[in-house]
């Protein structure tokens, strides 16, 4: 529209104010994390070597680079606790994403086929729970899964089990909590993709003698791939860094990376290692996002 020179003050403010805010409270903090991840742990308060002595000028700058060390990253690699933690997170995220796909797909499909006048209400019903707090939804499951909770009572009443089973502090509970919490995140992108699908394609396949299951796998599923990709990414990424669900529903012996970072920071007060964990976690998460964005740009 206009050139940089003749921009009106409002537009200039619209660019500069949020830009400055994000640099101060998003970019700068992240650079600090990056710097601390290369610092040495010290016993002093705060527990890391100082950021940078700007007053010292050039000498300070030299010192700054001399003080950098990859020691914390070496620690991450040498201690199997951290490696396991990453693997555990990736495992939980992968399995939950697959379960989510399997159970959300039929629901999204049904939503897309629902009569138009009901569709709005039904979509709203799917979205509504994720406006309620994350914590409430996880807590609701503690209510059900606890030792004398409803699930055990129901199973005993149905004579499926004789003695109460321990559900809390197990991987099953973590998967259940994650699948429950992320369910709308998977349904909505799938619904958006399936809703756009042209019904005549299905009719054409049927007319040409394709049985419904074959039409589903050869027409419907391939056409909904963008939704599958978007939904999987939307679930996978936050699940990898998930903290609340494994902390409340899982056992401490199988910590995911978010919990490990938390423990390093708050429990062991090892800020450099916690920072290094954060940097590596981000490095794990960035490639799938970039691949997805590139593919999306390519599709356009």
């Amino acid at each position, binding site marked *: 529209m206009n050139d*940089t020179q003749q921009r*009106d*003050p*409002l*537009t200039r403010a*619209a*660019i500069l*104010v*949020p830009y400055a*805010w*994000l*640099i101060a*409270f*998003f970019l700068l903090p992240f650079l*600090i*994390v990056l710097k601390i991840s290369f610092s040495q742990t010290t016993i002093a308060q705060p527990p890391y070597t100082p*950021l940078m002595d700007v007053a010292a000028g050039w000498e300070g700058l030299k010192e700054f680079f001399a003080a950098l060390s990859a020691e914390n990253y070496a620690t991450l690699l040498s201690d199997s606790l951290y490696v396991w933690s990453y693997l555990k997170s990736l495992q939980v995220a992968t399995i939950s994403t697959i379960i989510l796909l399997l159970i959300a797909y039929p629901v999204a499909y*049904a*939503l897309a*086929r629902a*009569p*138009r006048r009901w569709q*709005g209400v*039904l*979509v*709203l019903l799917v*979205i509504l729970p994720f*406006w*309620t*707090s994350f*914590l*409430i*939804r996880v*807590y*609701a499951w*503690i*209510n059900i899964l*606890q030792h*004398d*909770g409803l699930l055990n*009572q129901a199973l005993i009443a149905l004579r499926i089990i004789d003695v109460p089973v321990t559900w809390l502090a197990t991987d099953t509970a973590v998967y259940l909590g994650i699948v*429950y919490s992320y*369910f*709308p995140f998977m*349904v*909505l992108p799938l619904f*958006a993709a399936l809703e756009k699908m042209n019904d005549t394609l299905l009719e054409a396949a049927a007319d040409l003698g394709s049985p419904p299951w074959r039409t589903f796998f050869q027409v419907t599923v391939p056409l909904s791939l963008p939704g599958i990709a978007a939904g999987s990414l939307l679930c996978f990424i*936050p699940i*990898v*860094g998930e*903290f*609340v669900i494994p902390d409340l529903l899982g056992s401490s012996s199988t910590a995911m990376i*978010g919990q490990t*970072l938390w423990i390093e920071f708050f429990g062991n007060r090892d800020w450099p290692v916690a*920072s290094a964990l*954060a940097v590596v*976690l*981000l490095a794990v*998460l960035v490639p799938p*996002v970039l691949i997805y964005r590139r593919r999306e740009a390519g599709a356009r």
Partner: protein
Amino acid sequence: MRRFGTVNLTALALGLAFLYLPIAILIISSFNDSRLVTVWAGASLRWYRELLRDEAMLDAASVSLRVAFLSASAATVLGTLAALALTQRFRGKLAFSGMIYAPLVMPEVITGLSLLLLFIAVEIDRGFWTIVIAHTTLTLCFVAVVAQSRLVSFDKSLQEAAMDLGCPPLRTFLLITLPLIWPAVASGWMLAFALSLDDLVIASFVTGPGATTLPLRIYSEVRLGVKPEINAVCTIMIAVVALGLIAASLLTKRSPSQSLGARV
């Protein structure tokens, strides 16, 4: 003609049951007079009365509401400005849009950790205001995305016509642009408010003495075990959110699913 078979109906019914059953159980047990989830001792408001006596919980609720109100309002202003900026071309726009989208997918533990380290590095006392700043930063990105989706879909010629007729930029914004995008701005504010009320992880990093938000309070109670009082708090929070959403959809006269869908 669309057919809606039994299979679809079953899938939908099971899906909704999965979503709502745990919440329904929670709401019902909040009215249960018994301390035990599995024993129904008659309907009562006992836990709600106990809640009213719980000073710490009420304090936390007040802190949460104030944080959410302030941060949502700040985030709405900043986010709307950012959305306007995103419709412009300028140097450094790639970095700008990167910083808008990155916090949306950034794990909360990292956002919390990095903001805490910033506050320590610049020696700001942690507490109420640091939570407000942290929530503003996170939610302004959500507001920007919601408002931008509205900005790209409306007719630019209206803005240009006003400018051509000599209307100054600020006036054009207030008289033309803002009325046109306000449903998105309003739902952006609500989204920011809800996200702020919801946040536990970021708040636990950046909080300080004397600033305990409701999720922080609930979390510390939940870790000690299930308490019927928590059921009551959760039921109230669910009721507030549900009422807010109904009000919003009546107010903006459009299907909330459209504006809320922007969260995904």
